[in-house]
């Protein structure tokens, strides 16, 4: 088990290095001189040259990358070109908000989506099945920023039930979590339903019925455990899309998390911040996938974690 975890973490390293290297190269190939960006149009040629040297921009790209990664390994993620702040402390300050937002929305999505999916599958062709499917479809098709904006206007500005933006209390997170979770809820619901219906068709469910198990027992003891397997994988995938979605939600609700940091960095082409954020997210997603695989192996006896 420990060996497996270690191996998976080791395998994560080349993946993260590879993608960050590609992005590093592409970002640096883009037009525009970072020194000009930092010092402004009026800076003297000497000042610009000094700045370039300071940033290591006069060295070959590969060397710059290696230097950057060595820095990262020492906990030095560099300094923002735009804001001049150190990336790592800024990060540590912002991460809790993003994680809180992500976990709350995942939690909400699972706790509503999965049971609804189960009920929809059990009551196939029933009103509740159609209603859940319709709900999933609407949530799946709505742009989340629009959903967030409309929710904000309705509940925060018109009805004044919830604070409209910023952080401070848990109430601030209610609406953001709902809007971020909506899409995930939809995919959890559909996945659960499909998977359950798939399991119901299996031979061993017929065996269970032939044993004289009643409907409740068939569902609880036989369908659920098998039907949850693909859902677990789906949760892992959802975490990744949750990280993507948080950019939008954090922007709409002015939450000072990683997402809003990234969007500003992208707009200003702030390489150190973009790089740092992507490294963090790649590692985070990798670890989540590892956890999902471990959970999967725990509930499915057929899967063995072999290093």
């Amino acid at each position, binding site marked *: 088990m420990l060996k497996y975890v270690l191996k998976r973490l080791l395998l994560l390293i*080349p*993946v*993260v290095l*590879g*993608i960050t290297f*590609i*992005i590093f190269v*592409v*970002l640096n*190939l*883009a*037009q525009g001189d970072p020194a000009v960006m930092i010092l402004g149009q009026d800076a003297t040629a000497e000042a610009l040259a000094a700045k370039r040297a300071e940033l290591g921009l006069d060295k070959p790209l590969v060397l710059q990358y290696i230097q950057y990664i060595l820095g990262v390994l020492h906990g030095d993620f560099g300094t923002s070109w735009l804001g001049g702040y150190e990336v790592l402390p800024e990060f540590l300050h912002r991460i809790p908000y993003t994680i809180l937002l992500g976990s709350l929305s995942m939690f909400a999505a699972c706790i509503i989506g999965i049971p609804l999916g189960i009920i929809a599958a059990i009551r*196939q062709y029933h009103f509740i099945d159609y209603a859940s499917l319709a709900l999933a*479809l*609407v949530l*799946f*098709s*709505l*742009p*989340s*920023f*629009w959903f967030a*904006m*409309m929710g904000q*206007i309705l509940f925060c*500005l*018109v009805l004044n039930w919830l604070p409209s933006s910023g952080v401070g209390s848990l109430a601030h997170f209610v609406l953001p979590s709902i809007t971020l979770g909506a899409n995930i809820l939809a995919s959890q619901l559909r996945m659960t339903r*499909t998977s359950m*219906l*798939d399991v119901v*068709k299996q*031979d061993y469910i*017929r065996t269970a019925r032939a044993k004289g198990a009643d409907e409740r027992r068939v569902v609880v003891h036989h369908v659920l455990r098998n039907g949850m397997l693909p859902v677990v994988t789906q949760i892992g995938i959802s975490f*990744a*899309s949750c*990280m*993507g*979605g948080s*950019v*939008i939600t954090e*922007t709409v609700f002015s939450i000072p998390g990683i997402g809003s940091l*990234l*969007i500003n*960095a*992208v*707009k200003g*082409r702030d390489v150190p911040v*973009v790089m740092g954020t*992507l490294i963090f*997210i*790649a590692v985070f*997603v*990798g670890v989540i996938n590892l956890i999902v695989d471990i959970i999967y192996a725990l509930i499915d006896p057929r899967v063995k974690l072999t290093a």
Partner: protein
Amino acid sequence: MRKKKKSPVKTVSGRSVWGMVWFRFRKNKLAMAGLFLLLFMMAAILAAPLYVPYDQVVKQNIVEKFTAPCAQHWFGTDQFGRDLFARIVYGGRISLFMGLGVVAISFVVGCALGGAAGYFGGRVDSVIMRFVDMFMAIPAMLLSMAVVAALGTGVDKLLVALSISQIPRFTRVVRSSIMTLRSQEFVEAAKCCGTSSARIIMKHILPNGMGPVIVSATLTLGQVILSIASLGFLGIGVSSPTPEWGTILSENKIHIRYHPYLGLIPGVCIALAVMAVNFIGDGLRDALDPRTKN
């Protein structure tokens, strides 16, 4: 529950597999509704110059600003008095057709990469899949944002950024679909008479493996339409004054509270387009794989 294959009907219909798919698809009311809705939207957008001149999109008319929907301005006007209907119809060009473009590019590239990985296996497979893994390490949305950061904004750059983020997924779907077919007996039968790899791929493997890929392409189209709108909304997609559904929402966001139609209409347009696409995707999946139906 499994029902053994019945001996076939006596009629010698000669209906091909795609014929069967279309036959089943046609019976699915939601999917047909989605198809008609999508075709209608596309036709309306393509034919826009016939009934709305383009200058309506940019012509500002402060006197008429914030006109609620009426006979003259079907969807009302925005803060500069521009006609919202014209902006939406022309904006659809980007939202819908760029979405199609992204899907087409990633479809073609994904088929080539996934096809090579799946059919040849071995080293080709591991090299391609290592790259795919790398690109899959970052959520699609963030990946396209990073590419936008590097390339800058604009229609062409957005097209590249979104395609890059979708290619890995297509590659995976195509690869797994091909790998299951590679060892099928009809492929072996083709090898038996010395059929070349190219002919085996083109004639025997690709036509059979396309089902899941097409379904995934349809569902991806929905997601891409959403992504275009999201990037537009975040201000790193297509920039104003070029209309695009996400950008329209973004530029009007502070006025929505008092002029709700400014938010409702573009939002509903996006949702309808995505919903239509999803209906089609679901319908195709059921039609291609009758087992999923009950």
